[in-house]
């Protein structure tokens, strides 16, 4: 009897955890599907989507440019001193461009967006939940997901590929600053290598990644904020925990999905 209990208890515990995780996953999937489908419900949430595009896209331009230029400069520096050992410093443009377009551009843009927009979305929805504003929407027969989440998702799907493209270009310019202006590579060779090495598949791969990251960031951060009240903590502490959790989970998921997508796209 004791032996049976000894075996049973951890199994029951594992089973309970598995069921809870599966339930959470199912709920998340439904949340994503609803928020995606409701983007196309009539009347289209055009005004709200534009507002969110301004918030997610336009307001992120400066921080993403700043990040991208320094990443490009660091890549230029490291790339130069590594390549010069093999006498291949001429391919610096190709190295910087491919690293940025395939990997660092989408990932860094996504991570920056998690910090800048994702956290504020989680906090905003969390506060709306605890102050009954989401309940108020339901009582007015306004679908809270359509009203609050769908425009954010639509805006991120528009903004993130554009921000990624911008990060790629600015990063290549950053590489140019160190590689060409500081370390003396020929500007013609730098851009010629960029042009010859980058193909459309690389650019499309980066865009696909940025679209997936947009979905991951918005749904995870909004999901965490939307269900703040079901966490272990309540009130302001509950909101702070869901915001932190949203940022951590979204960032980790961006990195995991990046690996999966890279392996699929290669």
């Amino acid at each position, binding site marked *: 009897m004791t032996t049976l209990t000894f075996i049973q208890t951890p199994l029951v515990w594992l089973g309970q955890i598995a069921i809870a995780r599966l339930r959470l996953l199912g709920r998340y999937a439904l949340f994503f599907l609803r928020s995606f489908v409701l983007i196309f419900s009539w009347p289209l949430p055009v005004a709200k989507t534009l507002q969110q595009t301004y918030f997610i896209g336009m307001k992120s331009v400066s921080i993403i440019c700043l990040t991208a230029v320094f990443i490009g400069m660091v890549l230029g520096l490291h790339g130069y001193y590594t390549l010069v050992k093999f006498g291949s410093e001429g391919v610096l443009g190709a190295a910087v461009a491919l690293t940025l377009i395939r990997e660092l551009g989408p990932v860094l843009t996504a991570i920056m967006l998690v910090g800048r927009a994702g956290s504020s979305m989680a906090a905003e929805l969390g*506060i709306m939940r605890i102050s009954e504003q989401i309940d108020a929407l339901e009582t*007015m027969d306004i679908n809270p997901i359509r009203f609050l989440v769908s425009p954010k998702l639509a805006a991120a799907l528009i903004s993130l590929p554009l921000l990624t493209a911008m990060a790629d270009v600015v990063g290549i310019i950053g590489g140019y600053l160190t590689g060409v202006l500081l370390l003396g590579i020929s500007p013609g060779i730098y851009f010629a290598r960029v042009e010859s090495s980058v193909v459309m598949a690389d650019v499309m791969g980066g865009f696909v990644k940025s679209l997936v990251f947009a979905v991951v960031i918005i749904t995870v951060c909004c999901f965490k904020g939307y269900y703040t009240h079901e966490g272990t903590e309540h009130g302001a502490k509950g909101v702070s925990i869901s915001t932190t959790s949203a940022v951590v989970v979204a960032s980790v998921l961006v990195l995991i999905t990046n690996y999966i997508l890279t392996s699929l796209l290669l």
Partner: protein
Amino acid sequence: MTTPFIQFKDVSKAFNGNHVLRGIDLDIYQGQITTIIGKSGGGKSVLLKHIIGLLEPDAGCIIIDGHDLTRLRGRPRRLLRRRFSYMFQDSALFDSMTVFENIALPIEERGELKAAEIKARVQARMRDLDLGAIDGGYPSQLSGGMKKRVALARALVTDPEVVLFDEPTTGLDPIRKNNVHNMIAEYQQKLGFTAVLISHEIPEVFYFSQRIAMLHEGRIIYAGTPHELQHLDDPVVNEFVQGFETPAGNASGIVSDGSWEAQFNEEMARMQRHRVPFALVVLTIENLEDVLATGSGEAQGLTRRFTDRVRRQLRLTDTCSLIGPKSVLLLLPFTNLSQAKMVCGKLRRALNGNEIKDIQSHEGPCLAVSAGLAEVAGNGHPEHTLAQALAHKEIFYQFSVC
């Protein structure tokens, strides 16, 4: 009687094993104001949220206009919900939107009206609620009372069939509180909606509610008219309605904590509106020390039992507060000085008999109770009026209780 518009049938709800509703049976009729009263934290808001579908019952069903809400899904449920409005306890205004946007949101999202019509309707509601020129302000810039009125305007802007009010006057000053009550009553008469109200404003709600339901320990222990409630001989209901529950371990025996002043100010506001005076009576047990000297020394218990007896003789609208170890203050709305004297006469007759032996728990002298009266017909200050009543107590009345 007509068929109820909303029916709760054996509705139960628990949160993490805590049973909040334990088999609620309640009928709410169309075109009436039904007020739900009960202790704070007793599940009144939970009950209200079931009506609009924010919460689902664990057991039982809720019938609304012939439809079982617990089984209704999709479009029919949405259409039913559109007939309702809800005013939240903490207003639940959208803090990132202006006052105008907050009020306009429910009608804007329905997409049935043009922008000019929406603007006209929102402005009309803002005028009705004395919201002045704050349409461009944000909720965080408003006072608590102002937020309540914005929430009320938002609840009424869709011209709903049913409006659910979750403590609409909590945190308002007496004048604003009366304004909100008047407005609920006025709009209910004008628009004919069914109102379900949660309130602790007793006896205010009795003036304009057609039905009162009392929730106690998860069950509806009374549902009927305010008039029936007045004649109900139920200790739990009476204790709650007449506000005489003493906190456990209250050593002072003073229950009111100055709340009579707030009541006084409310009566002042009402008096100024209706131009009808009200009276203040101070009953004092003059020989309390002599009575105590003979035995038990139970001052608080004796005064409290005496006050309880007095309270039972009063009208539902009268209020009764302990204002000292041996003094009880009565506020008698719509009562002039001669009527107050009649009330004292009635009290003397009622208390002067064998049936009040239980006031004193031991053998001893009779209680000598004096009554000081004051009428408030113009401007009056609570403390001045109290002093006036105390100064004139010998002149008016004195009686013994034994």
